[in-house]
């Protein structure tokens, strides 16, 4: 390391070739030939920062003209969100705020309004930050991701992330759509985050989707951000809670299990210990809110 990389930030100090394909087929064709040495430019709020700080590539494939990937479509079995939908549009979508509260809450406070005017939901997912707010929400909502390359495949979101800033996307592939199955009528979801200040990346974030029948947990899904190398589901905790009655004791025990499912690090935003403690507090709070929302009755 010869230069203090973290300090760069005014110009992009290298040359690249720039393409702005007009539609999806053109995009895929470009990725087929250049994907290995290319970066995909969606909103730019992550990529441009990276380019100023040492990230290099030979090609930039800009999706600015690929309008067909920007939509929020409520269909019969699922909600389909185009990967290039701006976060501001995700935030303002009434179907998302009514039926997929966790995603609405994740998008609503992400970054700042200007960041949300530019950034896309696909970008937030593919950038694969361990703290990706939308990812935590989508994990709890059991989303599926449509990936297109030479063919098409559906990747469940909990199989999408590999490592910090790394996903299963191959160099010739593109995330085109996020598919979210509707929650059963009586189920609901909640997303919570802790930020140091208004514009910070989340120190920790958690999303819970839950269905209670009487006081029993029929299903629960917990998505966690910023406490592991990638956003994760807390399967063991979910397993523990399934079929149980929600009591203070049960929740306490469940949160003990949650500790084992996190591998947080210490960084500028918080210590590992804090992240563990705070995430448990968020999950507890989310469960409390969801419980009171549906009244916990038959």
């Amino acid at each position: 390391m010869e230069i203090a990389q973290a300090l760069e930030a005014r110009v992009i100090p290298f040359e690249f070739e720039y393409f702005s394909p007009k539609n999806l087929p053109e995009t895929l064709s470009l990725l087929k030939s250049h994907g290995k040495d290319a970066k995909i430019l969606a909103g730019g709020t992550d990529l441009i920062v990276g380019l100023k700080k040492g990230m290099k590539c030979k090609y930039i494939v800009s999706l600015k003209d690929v309008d067909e990937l920007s939509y929020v479509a409520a269909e019969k079995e699922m909600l389909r969100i185009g990967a290039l939908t701006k976060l501001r549009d995700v935030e303002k979508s009434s179907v998302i705020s009514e039926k997929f509260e966790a995603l609405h809450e994740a998008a609503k406070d992400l970054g700042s309004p200007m960041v949300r005017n530019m950034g896309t939901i696909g970008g937030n997912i593919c950038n694969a930050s361990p703290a990706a707010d939308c990812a935590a929400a989508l994990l709890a909502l059991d989303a599926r991701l449509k990936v297109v390359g030479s063919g098409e495949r559906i990747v469940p979101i909990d199989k999408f992330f590999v490592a910090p800033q790394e996903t299963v996307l191959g160099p010739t592939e593109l995330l085109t759509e996020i598919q979210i199955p509707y929650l059963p009528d009586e189920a609901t979801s909640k997303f919570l985050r802790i930020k140091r200040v208004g514009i910070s990346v989340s120190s920790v974030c958690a999303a819970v989707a839950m269905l209670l029948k009487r006081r029993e947990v029929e299903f629960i899904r917990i998505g966690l951000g910023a406490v592991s190398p990638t956003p994760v589901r807390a399967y063991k905790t979910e397993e523990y809670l399934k079929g149980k009655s929600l009591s203070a004791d049960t929740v306490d025990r469940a949160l003990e299990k949650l500790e084992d499912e996190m591998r947080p690090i210490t960084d500028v935003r918080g210590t590992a210990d804090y992240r563990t403690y705070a995430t448990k507090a968020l999950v507890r709070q989310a469960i409390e809110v969801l419980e009171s929302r549906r009244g916990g009755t038959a």
Partner: protein
Amino acid sequence: MSALKFKYIGKPEKAVDQLKFLHGRGLFIDDFRVPSTLPPLLQVALVASPYAHAKIKSIDVSEAKKVPGVVNVYTGQDLVPHHKAPLPCNIPTLPAPHQYILAVGKVRHYGEPVAVVVAEDLKTANIAARKVKVEYEPLPAVVDPEEAMKEGAPLVHDGVKNNIPYHDVFPFGDVDKAFAEADVVYKDRFYYHRTCTNPIEPLGAVSYYDNLAGEMHLWSNFQNPRYLSGFSAGVLGIPSNKYHAYRFDIGGSFGAKYAVLYTAILTGMLSMLTGRPVKYFETRGEYIASWHAGGEERIYYLEIAARKDGTILGLKEKIISNYGAYMGVYSPGQEFNPFAQWTGAYKIPNVYVDVSLVLTNTTAGSSAQRGFGAGQQMFALERAVDGLADMVGMDAVEIRRKNFIQPNEFPYVIPTGNIYDSGNYPAVLEKALKLAKYDELKKKQEELRKKGRYIGIGLATVPHRSSYNIIEMAIPNPGMLLSTSPASASLKVNDAGQVIVTLYFAQSGQSHKTAVAKMAADGLGIDISDVNVVFEEDTLKSLYDAEPGGSRQTPIIDMVLGEAIKRLKQKLVRVASILLPWDEQHLAYENGVVRATNNPDKKITLKELALVANWQTFKVPSEDVGLQVEASLNSPSTIPDAMRRFYFYPFMGFSADIPVVEVDTRTGVVKVLKYFHVNDSGTIINPPVARGQIIGGLVHGMTDALYGEMKWDKDGTLLSTNFGTYFLPTSMEAPDFIVDFHETPSPLNTFGSKGIGETGRIVGPAAIASAVEDALKQLKVKIREIPITPDRLISELKRR
């Protein structure tokens, strides 16, 4: 208050200074374009070290030089002969030269530049900078100051034993006797982190050396160009009388652009080498990592002794200050600057200070920062007073009332020698308690606690020194020539009878044009539309003004303008005595007219006088042509005596602050809900401007108390390099501010004003720490360290 006495002072007025910014028409250094008659501008990019401590084994610039558009690449070694004098350093024990503009032989902190590329455009410079190959041999780094002081710690500078270039003790009074007589002694350790001011505009400069005329031109956003250009000229070997430093609009400074020579010297040197204008405008990361980041990390070991009735008898402090990798021109200033208000609002007759400056492999903290260390001392003192209150069973309000300097005791000399000019601390505290409806707040707090919510009501009562004289620089460096900090103003009346005030300092948003116009209009008793206030841009054409810093300008210009008005009135009377004619002894000026005191019909107006003095100039004495006057004044001061007591900050404001916070004990997040502040800064010239300064300062105080912190890992790699990692409060964190004023004018100047700029940051951290501790009283959590981050708070809570 003042609104009753004056026509303009005290009345809210739209600041004309700010109008251009609303249309995007400010002229900031990054907007500046060199005159087209000069050679084209060159840009630079720095090659910064990724190591906190390393030997520079080799630097290969050959590839970088080949990039088309690169003019040259210089290493630290290349620039050594171009330092005609060492970079000024105010610690004589450090062998000179202590620092070069680029690292030579060794790097001592992360981000220290080792080479610079000069190119036709910024992108080329940056591309080439990445082709410079530097071979480092990493050395062990030391980051923690108490670790750095131990035997065997890596030495940041050779020959500086234990990394302590300066240590001294300052006894004022007799602490041993005081402590022996005391009934109780409260002891504690306090910690105030390393801060970085982070104005939204980084530092920048353009230099052009005109080798035909032998004159240097520096365009920059320095807060105090006059003060700095002298030092830069010395290093560059340019006669000071040929060094023009031009004043610009400044995008916030708060001390960050004070006492920082870096951009001037680098661009000046490079311009001399290339024959062209050279620009350096920092990136945010460079600003944070470079050697002017801000306030030093301080550890206080404090003991405060009192009688059991709460009367404080003595204060003992051992302070360890982490100055990072280098000491600069103002370096130790932030230790002794707080001497101006060391004992706060209280009568503490015996004081002992033991101060060690420590070097570590972190960013050099040689700059000033809003408060210059006073906020740090007030944090430690106020927390200690609260700790003492607990010990003697008094509440926070009682113990303060008991120890306040009383209204009839001003002017009050504190043990360090500074003199507080005026104040009424009990009245201001009373007003604050009423404003906050303190007793009601306490009741609501109780109710909410029963519902499981942790609300805290803080209290801090803190004086605010203003208008410094930089005498404190001499304390660590007794060999240096003592200096004070005068200000100047010029005044003239044109042929239309309109007044022009010329001032000689840079501004970063303080609205002095509007404020001084009010002072001039009220001072002369004329219509404000007949007054224009202008600022001279070129320091060489300027009268002596030490320029802003330490909340200087308002009270000292108040003094200087008063003197200038007095001289103008003398001139008007003299000219009137000739023109009327009338005996000078029986003439007096008032409200735009010179009138005979013994014959009210004999008069001449300012406008009539001015027309003659500007047009019919043969009718008036030559010295009165143009009705031009100047005044330059020092504010009151004394030089250090044998005990090193000195008087250097004559104006002393005061505030009583009551913040209300809520602590979420599940997540450790602190939210400031409301902030009550009653401010006494003497006569308030323009209330909305004053309120804005107070609130802005309080948010700086909040930043220190709760959010932003400079962080390095154990190897000295800087972790806080941008706004994502150095947390600045956003509008989301802003509480409701309820501000009121109480005016105890200063007896030392014309209109009674005192400075207000640093107030918020001097009191904010103490007040907020007090509030958080109050919120967690039942949980017995003590706040002794700031910033109060969620992880630290949870850690504390878990321990209980």
